[in-house]
């Protein structure tokens, strides 16, 4: 018997639970403006979530998945990506999406049940509802970028539940073999609806799933926006410059129901959430900013007001959106509608006209 291979998984943290710097401060974190920008986005994310849930509760939005407590993950991603990188998101990722240019109102439109919420986004993908399937799209996109020798990276996200899907693994595997410019980010929020992390896999970390595909995985404190931003940046750079894929596991906690259709009290042990709340990302950064003397209660109140106003504007835009014509449901199925569907299109139009009229 001899040892023929050894592997290690590292854990990264910069700003710890009590807002102390415990790692090397990356250069972006020395720029106060940058820190404030990250903070503002996270707050906007939270304000947006609160509003979206309220809309759902009052029947003006469909099922909605909050990202409460996970804001650092999506904000860090959105901040680290370059404009011409490509994002292949999952459904809690809207902070990253709007940082990349998708209006808040489009996010609402989507969750309000309107495909036009996916209309903007350039080369980025819309969410993939079937959990775990999008990693392969990201790999295909990365293949295209590599074939064309463009120095761009693809970043794809999913929850820790999604890592149980065969597709997730197949995506890692091909990224390893074909040396694709891709970063896989797992938002490990400890729950897949009601199934706890411990029942999703026996692996000690999710990061080590990358070992199966022959590349580096690492764990990051997902409540620490500085660490998230930094490790995503490093991984993206490796992807862009050297075609090296990376898997990042962000450790955080789902401080909310799975979606508005869920009731976590049915399955979540009492007390855990409160305990985890001590680590949550926004207060953590706020304390740090306050320690730096670049934040205070007045600025906070002002920010809250601004965010509320921005969200309110988006809500108004969303609510004012005219319904799409019924025929939209078939007009985008093919580039050119096959003759077999002309009659059906006519019927759809008629039904639409009747119902609207």
């Amino acid at each position, binding site marked *: 018997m001899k040892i023929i291979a050894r592997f290690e998984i590292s854990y990264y943290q910069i700003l710890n639970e009590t807002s102390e710097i415990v790692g090397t401060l990356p250069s972006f974190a020395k720029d106060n403006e940058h820190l404030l920008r990250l903070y503002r986005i996270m707050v906007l994310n939270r304000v947006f979530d609160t509003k979206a849930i309220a809309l759902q509760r009052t029947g003006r939005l*469909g*099922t909605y998945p909050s990202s409460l407590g996970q804001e650092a993950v999506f904000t860090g991603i959105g901040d680290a990506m370059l404009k011409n990188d490509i994002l292949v998101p999952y459904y809690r990722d809207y902070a990253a999406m709007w940082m990349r240019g998708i209006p808040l109102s489009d996010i609402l439109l*989507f*969750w*309000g*049940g*309107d*495909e036009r919420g996916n209309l903007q986004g350039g080369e980025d993908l819309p969410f993939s*509802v*079937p*959990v*775990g399937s999008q990693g392969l799209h990201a790999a295909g996109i990365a293949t295209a970028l590599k074939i064309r020798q463009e120095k761009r990276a693809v970043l794809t996200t999913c929850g820790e*539940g*999604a890592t*149980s*899907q*065969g*597709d997730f693994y197949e995506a890692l595997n091909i990224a390893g073999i074909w040396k694709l410019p891709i970063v896989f980010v797992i938002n490990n929020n400890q729950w*897949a*609806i*009601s*199934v706890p992390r411990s*029942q*999703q*896999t026996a692996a000690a970390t999710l990061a080590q799933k990358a070992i199966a595909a022959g590349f580096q995985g690492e764990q990051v404190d997902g409540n620490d926006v500085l660490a998230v931003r930094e490790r995503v940046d490093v991984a993206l750079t490796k992807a862009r410059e050297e075609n090296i894929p990376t898997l990042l596991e962000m450790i955080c906690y789902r401080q909310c129901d799975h979606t508005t*259709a869920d009731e976590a009290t*049915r*399955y979540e042990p009492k007390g855990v959430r409160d305990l985890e709340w001590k680590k949550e990302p926004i207060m953590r950064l706020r304390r740090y900013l306050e320690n730096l003397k670049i934040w205070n209660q007045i600025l906070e109140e002002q920010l809250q007001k601004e965010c509320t106003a921005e969200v309110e504007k988006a809500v108004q835009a969303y609510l004012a959106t005219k*319904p*799409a014509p*019924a025929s*939209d*449901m*078939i007009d985008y*199925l093919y580039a050119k509608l096959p003759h*077999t*569907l002309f009659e*059906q299109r006519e*019927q*759809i139009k008629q*039904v*639409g006209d009747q*119902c609207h009229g």
Partner: protein
Amino acid sequence: MAEITLVEAINQALAYEMQADPDVILLGEDIGKDGGVFRATVGLLEKFGEERVRDTPLAESMIAGLAIGMAMQGLKPVAEFQFMGFTYPALDQIINHAARMRNRTRGRLSCPLVFRAPFGCGIHAPEHHSESTEAIYAHIPGLRVVIPSSPQRAYGLLLSAIRDPDPVIFLEPARLYRWAKQEVPDDGKGLPLDRAFILQSGEDVTLISWGAMIKETLSAAQKLKKDGISVEIIDVATIKPLDKQTLLTSIEKTGRCIIIHEAARTGGVGEHISAELAEQALFFLKAPIIRLTGYDTIVPYAKLENYYLPKEQQIIDAVQRVLEFA
């Protein structure tokens, strides 16, 4: 006796059969503490324990493959998929293994299992939560495909599905989960898996449907009755194998037939019924067999969803159209 919903009837059938047969094992995503995203398995973990009510990781091919392995060992797994649109990763296991193991081994091994999934649109859920692709399953030799449309039929058909020695795809119309309530005696009586149900006898036109469209079909019939039109309503219930005889007998009587389903028109099970009936009843038919179906497109998100489904009024119009043929 209290009246219960369709989803409660599912739960009652599961509980009954788990009590009666220790080999019945449930597996699926969130079926344990959470009781399933539609609450079909609520209370069963508490009653039957973790060995028999198994939350799985998030992987549908895994769920199917595990169920196949368990079934070959003589267990009777009843696996839940959260939505029909998430059954596709399991299709390989279902088509290439579950449906074939008995045939492949000339009877040595078999797969007595049930794959349950809610299906159909109308619940304002996101994309992929509105599928009606029962035709895919109905094409696969070796499977049975069963679709209840009332609490009583849900209870009786599910019991028979679990007891069946072969794999059964059991599709539950999500739109009917909490619609009409019925008294459902918990008597453990199964309903046959090869029979259609005549919900209403009539003389003028035969209306054939299944799943959630039974709702519109029944209400259309109510209105037609006021106009003195007598329709016969058949709930196909078991899509595969199809109870052709009951349908034929009805059409020989009425001479007119409308098939109503929610699935996309092309390749829908309506074609199966239409083709089979036309081949044998051609010279009884007073009018062409009409199919009222979903469109050949992707079920739209909530905002346009309502325009997708066939409407009560369309059924009424179609009945009137076929009645115009002498």
